[in-house]
């Protein structure tokens, strides 16, 4: 039935924002009408959206979905022109384009104890994975980290799907003062961990991965590479995993963290920094 609606209206008339909320000063949550994606998405999948016909194709992980209401939840941090514009959209507005679900879904099964590490806005993509693992009957321990208290997002939702939540902040304004790796190591030393998932800034994933390698714990990291099409057509999102070039959008976004070349990944993330900065300054001078 939904397919028919999509065909007869063409998808551009859908994608309406039905709810919006700032989770912190720079992190916005929007709930969008997207019945087909809400039905077909799995934990780990992402979408690509465009705000206007001049907009970039922005990849965002699906943080949650409500199949009955036909909505998906997206969480974005203001980092540049496009996300700044997204944060300015209001309930009732429609996204110009929305396509998905993209990427491979997380492999979820009953493994035992899962250590889920989320840094900053990386907590958003971690949420559906934690939910999936919990529903599959695993023991889930989540370590959430950010610079300060107001940057820890989705704490209640994470608590709902975790057996235990450990909060780490750089300034000690919430939870324990320290880095995500310190929280994680505490858990690893305390009990047997069967698998670790790390999502957050590249540097955070790199160090989490080094830590779990030391303890020989299989670890998945979800990468936020630069993307254009998101369908495997351009190679903008390529990363080196186990010495081989992979495309994050179709081969990932999750990979065996111990095999990822994080240094190359961080270098590639900076590939458009100068162009982005110029665009950002131009945009901010206009608003």
């Amino acid at each position, binding site marked *: 039935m939904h397919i028919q609606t999509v065909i007869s209206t063409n998808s*551009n008339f859908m994608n309406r924002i039905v709810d919006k909320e700032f989770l912190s000063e720079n992190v916005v949550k929007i709930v969008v009408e997207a019945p087909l994606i809400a039905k077909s998405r799995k934990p780990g999948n992402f979408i690509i959206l465009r705000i206007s016909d*001049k907009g970039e194709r922005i990849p965002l992980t699906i943080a949650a979905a409500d199949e009955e209401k036909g909505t998906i939840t997206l969480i974005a941090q203001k980092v540049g022109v496009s996300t700044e514009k997204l944060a300015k959209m209001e309930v009732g507005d429609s996204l110009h*384009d929305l396509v*998905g679900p993209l990427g491979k879904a997380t492999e979820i099964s009953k493994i035992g104890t899962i250590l889920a590490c989320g840094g900053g806005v990386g907590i958003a993509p971690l949420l559906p994975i934690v939910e999936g693992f919990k529903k599959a009957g695993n023991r889930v321990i989540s370590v959430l980290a950010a610079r300060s208290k107001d940057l820890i997002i989705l704490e209640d939702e994470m608590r709902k799907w975790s057996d235990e939540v450990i909060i780490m902040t750089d300034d000690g304004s919430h939870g324990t003062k320290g880095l995500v790796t310190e929280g994680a190591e505490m858990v690893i030393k305390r009990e047997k961990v069967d698998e670790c998932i790390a999502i957050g800034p590249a540097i955070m994933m790199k160090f989490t991965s080094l830590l779990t390698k030391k303890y020989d714990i299989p670890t998945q990291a979800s990468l936020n590479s630069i993307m*254009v*099409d998101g369908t495997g057509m351009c*190679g903008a999102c390529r990363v080196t995993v186990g010495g081989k070039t992979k495309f994050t959008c179709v081969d990932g976004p999750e990979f065996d963290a111990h095999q990822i070349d994080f240094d190359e990944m961080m*270098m590639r993330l*900076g590939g458009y920094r100068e162009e982005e900065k110029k665009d950002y300054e131009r945009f901010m001078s206009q608003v």
Partner: protein
Amino acid sequence: MTILSEYLKERRNEEWRAELRKKLKGKERTSIPRVKMPEVEPQERTKHQNVEVNLGLTEEQALVEASRCMDCATPTCIDGCPVQINIPEFVKNIERKEYGLAAQTLKKTSALPAVCGRVCPQEKQCEEQCFYTTKLGKDPIAIGYLERFAADWERESGEMSVPECAPANGKKIAAIGSGPASLSFAGDMAKLGYDVTVFEALHEIGGVLKYGIPEFRLPNSVVDVELENLRKMGVKFVNNFIVGRTASFDDLKEEGFEGFFVASGAGLPRFMNIPGENYNGIMSSNEYLTRVNLMGAASDDNDTPVLRGKTVAVIGGGNTAMDSVRTSKRLGAERSIIVYRRSRAEMPARVEEVNHAEEEGIEFMNLANPVEYFADEKGRVNKMRVQHMELGEPDASGRRRPVPVEGSEEDIDVDLVIVAVGVSPNPLIPSCLPELKVSKWGTIEVGDNMQSSIPVLFAGGDIVRGGATVILAMGDGRKAAASMHEYLSGEQKND
């Protein structure tokens, strides 16, 4: 005698054709030199990404060029055309100023003549088989230019006819992908009365015609007119919809779709897997062209950025390489260099594009291949090591194999590298249909009638052939439409 040659003879014997042949003596025809396509000057055209280089023939030029054609009794040019357009008939219609009829002749076999007139490798197809080339050793009739003339004339005259469609039969058909294969399939199925929906993963309809081939070669407006025509015929287009992801084949079947045509293209770019290839400033031609053509990155109004370079190296010798290198010139590069491992004669690109590139000041470094890249401290490429090659024995493709020359390495300063060494079939659809038979290269296997191992699923274009051409994709679409119609009608009878 085959049915085709029988038919061609019959048409050739029509009175108007016989009359026209008598109008000029053979000698008079063959002494006319081949027309030159009017073009925008190189200095001017390299300032714009969206200005078409070829302006199109004037009416006078087209009339003279059409009169060169001898209307041969055995028109070998037709053998060179992958879809067997009745070439003499459309050319002779131009000669007698029946431009509309010329366009209709083209449309009997080609769904997209305005596109093919611009992008077909005529010099390897119809024009190579022209009597002038094979027997006279002269420049062939400019069949491509004339094709474009007739198609453009029809479009600009506003007399573009919307083909008549059979009464709706209520059967729903899905075409997957919106490149030339799908568009021609959709047109034919709509004519047969089917309810056709075209699904496209990207936000734009048109496949490579939109995201790949730049506007200086194929203006978007030419493609848009074709899309509008299909819409008038009742074809529906859905963008942002990935079949197999947004909804599965089973979901679509449940929705009542009875036939599927997969034309998902050869979208996966190949890299060379050499050291340093993942540095910033090295990207696939697909990424480069998509940023510029699909996302409009060359203009400041668009949010998508694209890296610019002072010295740009483009690796490859095909159409994609030429499109990329000429784009880089238009985006302000001081030096734009083609690095190709064979010699110029072996370049797979259309000859016209290679010539245009040369006129635009593109440098050609033939018989050379990159072996390693180097970067600055931020990871941006700044040097490329190439190895020189020489031609050895012919390989499987019949072209002489390039062999590296020991100790011939040379370092070249570059700040942008575009890799255009080919594409692989898009793996998305095969990966969602385990029962679908694919070759070891990942192309979908089909029979002569374009039917795959799943009976309701037909396929064509690059997903079946690997990177091929617009005309072959279009031909596949038409063949698949005819076969699917036969299959679905047969099924009905068996019920």
